[in-house]
């Protein structure tokens, strides 16, 4: 019961505008992940929700109440920092109990709550240690435990896993997912630049770029229907292939031209005025397959093959009218392709994405807003 409502929020540091008129609503009990490239303002946005950063203009409401002028401690939030931010001279127990002590809770209640959080995170045997004596993963658990004990309405995570090694990151990610299941009343807001974390943890992903929201949606919506070129390139790994295409004919089975030789039948409905326009054709590496027929196929020169056993990444060049385009294909198994080959590819049916000159998704003759 703690939805977060953000209304036309802006923030500048000196002359640089870091958050530009963001509006966003985060459902109660949801797990919202904010992703975006480094420096796009994710941390700043999270810190504004936490109350660590002043709001220039706009409003933030938590559970229906404006918190613009509330100090962090009165917002009923807890935050987990990338650097753990534990209190170095306190034991793990005291780290987790500090907030409760400040709330003047009784000794037995403090003890119960800390023990309970320690049990959930499996750090019961570490309670007497100092942060210095813990590994990175253990420290991060203590930091999460410190957040849990205070029983907040909203959890804020700022890249909590980025200081951990790959294996530990996966394990802790799963723990955080479990944590959300075990605390169904809490709203979680999670900042990361790792799209795997975003895709696996979130009910709702907010893609941020240069202080603006590019798209809000569920992980699959973002993957299958990116609103614009930025999201298309940002979500998915390897990134979506984007090549320019010129519309030759509209009507039924419209055709677009990549170069003089390669013409592709598109699935989008165009209006007749679209004839001759330049669009961006997007298709994911995993939606490319080796052509079985000549229809709608195109050839490309293979420049590199990375074979990973389960699948292979094929890097190839398409000769365009003015320049070459690099594409990547993700083919299952171990295809018999090697560097220098000419390979004929096909795009899977209904897996083409079309974006207009301004980079917006284009469906059925309409710009998506």
């Amino acid at each position, binding site marked *: 019961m703690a939805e977060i409502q953000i209304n036309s929020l802006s923030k500048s540091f000196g002359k640089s505008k870091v958050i530009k008129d963001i509006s966003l609503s985060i459902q109660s009990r949801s797990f919202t992940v904010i992703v975006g490239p480094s420096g796009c303002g994710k941390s700043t946005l999270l810190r504004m929700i936490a109350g660590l950063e002043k709001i220039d203009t706009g409003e933030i409401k938590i559970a229906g109440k404006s918190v613009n002028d509330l100090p962090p*401690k009165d917002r009923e939030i807890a935050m987990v920092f990338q650097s753990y931010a534990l*209190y*170095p001279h306190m034991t793990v127990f005291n780290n987790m109990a500090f907030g409760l002590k400040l709330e003047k809770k009784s000794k037995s209640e403090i003890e119960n709550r800390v023990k309970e959080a320690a049990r959930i995170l499996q750090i019961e045997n570490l309670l007497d240690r100092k942060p210095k004596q813990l590994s990175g993963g253990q420290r991060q658990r203590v930091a999460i435990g410190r957040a849990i004990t205070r029983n907040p309405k909203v959890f804020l995570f700022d890249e909590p896993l980025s200081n951990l090694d790959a294996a530990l990151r996966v394990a802790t990610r799963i723990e955080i997912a479990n944590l959300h299941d075990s605390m169904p009343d809490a709203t979680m807001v999670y900042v990361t630049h790792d799209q795997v974390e975003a895709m696996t943890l979130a009910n709702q992903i907010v893609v941020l770029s240069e202080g603006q929201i590019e798209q809000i949606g569920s992980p699959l919506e973002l993957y299958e229907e990116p609103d614009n070129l930025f999201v298309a390139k940002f979500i998915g790994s390897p990134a979506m292939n984007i090549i320019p295409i010129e519309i030759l004919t509209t009507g039924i089975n419209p055709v677009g031209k990549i170069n003089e030789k390669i013409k592709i039948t598109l699935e989008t409905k165009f209006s007749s005025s679209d004839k001759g326009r330049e669009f961006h054709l997007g298709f994911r590496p995993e939606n490319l397959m080796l052509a079985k027929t000549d229809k709608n196929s195109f050839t490309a020169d293979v420049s590199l093959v990375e074979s990973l056993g389960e699948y292979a990444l094929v890097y190839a060049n398409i000769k365009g009218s003015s320049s070459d385009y690099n594409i990547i294909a993700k083919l299952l198994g171990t295809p018999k392709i090697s560097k220098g080959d000419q390979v004929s590819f096909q795009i899977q049916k209904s897996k083409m994405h079309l974006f207009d000159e301004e980079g917006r998704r284009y469906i059925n003759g309409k710009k998506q807003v």
Partner: protein
Amino acid sequence: MSFFSLISTILVGVLFFIIYFGLSNFILDFICRFKKNSIALENSVRAIIFIFPAFLVLFIFILYPVFETVRLSFYDKFGREFLGWNNYLWAINDPNFRRSILNNLGWLLIVPTLSTFFGLVIANLTDRIWWGTIAKSIIFMPMAISFVGAGVIWKFIYDYRGTDDHQIGLLNAIVVSLGMEPQAWLTISIWNNLFLMAIMIWIQTGLALVIFSAALRGIPNETLEAARIDGASEFRIFWSIIIPFLERTILVIWTIITILVLRVFDIIYAMTNGEWQTEVLANLMYDWMFRGGGDSGRGSVLACCIMIGVIPILFWNLYRHRQEQKYEN
């Protein structure tokens, strides 16, 4: 000594050491060529060769004077006749000595504590305001002044003229403008000690401030923010997060100032010369050692007292250092 004889002395000294190190290493190498399998021995001998000159200097200029002072403290004023514990008995019964011990204790309790306290608080406050750097520079400036120079400055603050005269002392000017009687501050015994300590605090706060400011930078911002989210007030953060974080720094500064204070001399020498019951051990020692013909026996007793005062602090520091190393390993 002329310029050239100075240069040649230095040259001779440098040459001597080159020959010393070169020759002794050469001899060691030569011997070791015949004795294989003795690397450990060779290493320790080489270490001794290198440490020896430094140890010699240390011995001549520090250890020897220490022993000599202790020896002299058992002899008469000319250092000729052995008196046993008599000098010490004299000291214990001397009212000036007792006064000095008390004053020294006062200095030791008040000055390091207040300097450290002010340094810490000011470092914290100046971090939050835009003119903090300017404030810090101003507070640090007294560090650049010698104690005697500081004494001269503060003489003007405590200066006293007769009641009919114009008061040129800052403190009296203020007191008079408030309609009260001017005071001869430095003659009011017991209180005058505090007025003298104020000078030392004024100087040492700058030192504490600069070191604390640097140490404060070392506290990660996120830790403080986490505390803020946990609901800690600014005072609570200062008390529960910042002070424990700076514990080591606090101890170091406190020790530095304590040792400085134990030797306090110049300020009192310049301001009151130990009169009106402001003397401390160092001043008393100076008086006995060099004034009125000099009494090396009693002077040495006082010097020993100061030394004994420093020893516990040193040992305690050493102990802490060992503990920390043990903890880190």
